[in-house]
């Protein structure tokens, strides 16, 4: 469960990114975060994995207040949150298998567990046959699948996705969305910032719209609502 209470964020250069945001996301929900560029969407999602600290207010994730979390405890938080990006953030010199295993190696899992879990998630995202390929040998959609596999290999309760389909063509995007739905069906909370109107309007889920650092709309089965 994610609960934000009166969250404000002013960057050191004076830009006000969030201007009093309060929201509650229940475990297992699928939430789109929409809004114009520069409205605070990115800051909003970055708060959830403690990439940014709020200037004031509190962010509770599974009972931990991120606003008061010590820097040294951040790694432990991240182990329970998967993050997916528009640019995949894969390591080009590692194979598909190594890229996914990376997330487990750095938290010191045993090699046996790593092998089992990595093959499981690669099977889930449908890339079991490409374990030995390098990222540059894969299509954009396949690369995003690898990055999703990496984000869920820890079995996190929450997956945060920042424009996961931003770099993909429409057809590939649908495949990626199916994957997210599948993950959501397993009980994982998904928070997805997106600009993709078609997806939001077709796969109807809760929509949170942010403008000028404030939540202007929060609907259970909402529409995208912008013309861009």
């Amino acid at each position: 469960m994610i609960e934000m209470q009166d969250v404000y964020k002013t960057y050191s250069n004076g830009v006000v990114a969030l201007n009093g945001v309060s929201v509650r996301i229940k475990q297992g929900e699928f939430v789109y975060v929409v809004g114009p560029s520069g409205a605070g969407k990115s800051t909003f999602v970055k708060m959830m994995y403690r990439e940014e600290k709020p200037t004031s207010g509190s962010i509770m994730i599974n009972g931990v207040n991120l606003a008061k979390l010590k820097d040294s405890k951040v790694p432990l938080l991240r182990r329970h949150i998967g993050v997916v990006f528009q640019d995949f953030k894969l390591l080009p010199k590692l194979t598909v298998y190594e890229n996914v295993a990376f997330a487990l190696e750095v938290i010191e899992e045993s090699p046996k567990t790593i092998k089992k879990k990595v093959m499981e998630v690669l099977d889930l995202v449908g890339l079991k046959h490409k374990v030995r390929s390098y990222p540059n040998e894969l299509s954009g959609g396949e690369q995003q699948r690898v990055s999703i596999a990496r984000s869920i290999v820890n079995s996190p309760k929450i997956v945060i996705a920042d424009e996961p389909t931003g770099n993909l063509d429409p057809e590939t995007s649908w495949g990626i969305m199916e994957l997210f739905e599948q993950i959501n069906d397993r009980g994982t909370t998904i928070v997805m910032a997106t600009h993709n109107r078609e997806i939001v309007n077709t796969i109807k889920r809760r929509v949170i719209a942010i403008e000028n650092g404030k939540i202007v709309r929060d609907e259970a089965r909402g529409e995208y609502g912008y013309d861009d």
Partner: protein
Amino acid sequence: MTINTLKRHMRESVKSLGRNGWMTFASISAVTVTLLLVGVFLVIMFNMNHFAKNIEDDVEIRVYIDLTATEKDKQALRAKIDAIPEVKEIQYSSKENELKNLIKSFGEEGSSFRLFEQDNPLSDVYVVKTVKPTDTMKVAKQIETFKFAHKVKYGQGEVEKLFKTLKIARNIGLGLIIGLLFTAMFLISNTIKITIFARRREIEIMRLVGATNGFIRWPFFLEGLWLGVIGAVVPVVSLSFVYYNIYEFVKPRLAVPFMQLLPFNPFMWQISAVLLLLGACIGVWGSMMSVRKFLKV
């Protein structure tokens, strides 16, 4: 940390040496060049010190005893010299002994001096050594004032000049070494900074998936260590090889007792250990400096 993690850090650090091929080469070259220079300086410095020490040890004051002095006067003079606190030891050398040494030092031609054995014109001598060689002049001046000290010789002027020159040379060498070390450290820290900069994505992802800072630091720590140690290998091997050959070449040819090189064993082992340690330290230091910057957030 588990064995597996340590193995992983080892593997990662070695792998990244290969992956960042040219950067690795540059870093190692920087260490190599620096340590080679430092090594050469150290070898020269230590040998110079060694020479200096030998020369210092050879510095002695020769007190020529007045010919009119009786046995009792000699004893009194000895006691007075002995009373000077800086004096380490006094050796008596009779005039017969002095003549023998003189004849010996002239070799074959020395035999003509045998005539003097009948009527020895030389003086008896006290050979005085001071505790600290630098006190030689002071002590000599003092002895000059004593009765029956006919003449006092200690290589006037020469000794002082030698000491001064050695001191200056030592200080210049030391200054150069410190300067070189700092240059090397900054060079390495910069090179590893570039290495890490090339891997900032990897660090970013590590942080995203929940690696602790300690975990992220380890491979870079090891990589720095390897860079430094590998960089030290070439200077260690080449210096040892060259020094060994010079030592073997020079040893039989330098007959002058105070002009001896320091023996290869243990001197070169010590130098090698110092260079390896130095390489490791600057490698690790450089890498730590750079990693810290990236883990601040």
